[in-house]
């Protein structure tokens, strides 16, 4: 009798765990559903292509213009430029951590990278506003220091920890036999790193880079505070831009509830969500298809 009730209890509890796990999928679905429910009504007002490729964003004019190409361009420009800084920096830090650092240095540098990751984005944005902007403005004689470059630099330091920690895992899991074989052939440590270890961990590194870029494109507070906020396609590195997250965060408070403007911001969120979803699925696909090579497969 006791055994039976114990077993029954076990089944019920297993069911409860499964339910809570299933709820996670539901959350992601709810996010998608509500973005679409609130975003799609805009397409009754503006045709999809005009929305995506329109270059004018005057949401409060009458008639209003809802073209988010400047925001998409701003997002891509900021993400691209920050990747140019963050990818080498993050990768080199990862190589240092897994190949060069002594265990002691490792135990110092690793928490440091984690702390950098933990810095609240609003503080990084604040720093960009108060310190980096005046510096850029004076050094380059600009009209405003709140621009593409400033945002990219700040974003880079937010993407570095993501890139570092994921690619470090990838580099770390390269089997030691590969390194030993290369060193035994007379290669230096640098040759081993550049021609054996890095190629072997390339899938993991690609995943890291994509996730780092995904983080940059979705980051809100930094671009809201330091990107300058001009809804135009950037022509130079020092132009102010208005990436998608900044546009949403800045205007949501003033957009009347359920107005076209409100729906347009949700539709912008939809586009942003699709961008990050694509990045994440690409990263998952690479991680799965190109499983890291082990010793036996070589």
């Amino acid at each position, binding site marked *: 009798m006791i055994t039976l009730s114990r077993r029954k*209890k*076990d089944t019920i*509890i*297993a069911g*409860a765990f499964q339910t*809570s*796990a*299933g709820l*996670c*999928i539901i*959350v*992601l679905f709810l*996010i998608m559903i*509500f*973005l679409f*429910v*609130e975003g799609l009504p805009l397409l009754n007002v503006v045709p999809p292509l005009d929305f995506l490729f329109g270059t004018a964003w005057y949401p409060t004019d009458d008639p209003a213009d809802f073209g988010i190409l400047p925001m998409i361009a701003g997002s891509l420009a900021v993400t691209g430029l920050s990747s140019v800084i963050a990818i*080498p*920096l993050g990768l080199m830090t990862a190589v240092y951590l897994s190949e*060069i650092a002594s265990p002691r240095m490792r135990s110092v*540098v690793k*928490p*440091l990278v*984690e*702390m*950098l990751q*933990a*810095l*609240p*984005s*609003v*503080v990084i*944005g*604040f720093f960009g506003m*108060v310190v980096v902007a005046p510096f850029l403005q004076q050094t380059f004689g600009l009209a405003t220091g709140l621009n593409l470059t400033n945002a990219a630099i700040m974003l880079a*330091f937010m993407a*570095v920890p993501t890139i*570092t920690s994921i690619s470090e895992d990838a580099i770390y899991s390269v089997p030691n036999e590969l390194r030993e074989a290369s060193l035994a052939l007379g290669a230096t*440590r*640098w*040759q081993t790193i550049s021609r054996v270890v890095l190629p072997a961990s390339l899938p993991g590194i690609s995943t890291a880079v994509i996730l780092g870029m995904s983080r940059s*494109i*979705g980051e*809100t*507070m930094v671009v*809201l*505070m330091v990107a300058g906020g001009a809804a135009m396609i950037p022509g130079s590195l020092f132009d102010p831009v208005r990436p998608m*997250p900044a546009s*949403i*965060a800045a205007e*949501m408070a003033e957009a009347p509830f359920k107005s076209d403007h409100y729906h347009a*911001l949700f539709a912008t*969120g939809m586009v*942003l*969500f699709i961008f*990050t979803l694509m*990045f*994440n*699925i690409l990263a*998952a696909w690479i991680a799965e298809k190109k499983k890291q090579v082990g010793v036996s497969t070589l």
Partner: protein
Amino acid sequence: MTHAPTHPNANVFRGNTVQHAASTLVQDQKFLQRRKPFQTFMFMLFRASVVLNALALAVICGFVLFYGLPAVNWEFLTAHPRDAMTAGGIFPCILGTIALSYGSMLIALPWGVCTAIYLHEYARPGPFVHAMRLAINNLAGVPSVVFGLFGLAFFVTLMQMGVSLLAGMFTLAALILPLIIGASEEALRSVSQTYREASLALGATKWQTLAKVVLPAATPGILTGAILGIGRAAGETAAIMFTAAMFFSPKLPGSVFDSVMALPYHIYVLATAGIDIEKTRPLQYGTALVLIVLVLGMNLLAIIIRARLQRKLR
């Protein structure tokens, strides 16, 4: 080559080969000599990149500390804002941030741990688990402002919570859920399989094994994840902008249906839309300092707990 010594040109041939070998040897030596400095150069570059990262962290923290410390005193920490936010303290913001971050953890921790238990202890590999992992990974990649939009449409509007502490807590809970799941799964993975086998061999059911053997052993690891999650939630701004935060409230929130002031949102508003941005700089620095101490303190705590844990495991 038996006839080679008698060949008239033998010496010439031999001389050539020797010469050739010598020249490649010189080349090799040059190459060997060159590659060592090149390695040194590259390694210096790697070290420089680490230094650059450290510098970024140090400069930001140092800057906030340097300007923020003079602004922080007892009154700043315990008083309400005064004179249209240009003076006074940030007590309501501290309280709001603590309520938001701990409240969201109250929701996300049981949920995340249960999910991790399912994934690690129960699930068999298959399409359902595959879809789950894909969903969790994607949830982790959703931009925080999109969480804010979702919270606005779902919790604030549809569930009629209004812009409130509760709506913010739920939104933040969804945001930190992937982090909790990841940390909990890691903790479960580090519990040796022999523990489970020993318990099952004694006749315990799966649930008894989990509750009395596996979970106690995994608790420190799960705790580390929870602390990191609280830190993440405390620093989050975009997700609470439309769901929970308000610029100024004359009184403290009386229930979970009131909106709250929060440290990150306070910094943002003071720095971008305040009445007198330059005049309130000290307040901004002070608020940033309090936020950084709160968030990095949480992280430091988690790092220390984990280091202890690893030493014990070894």
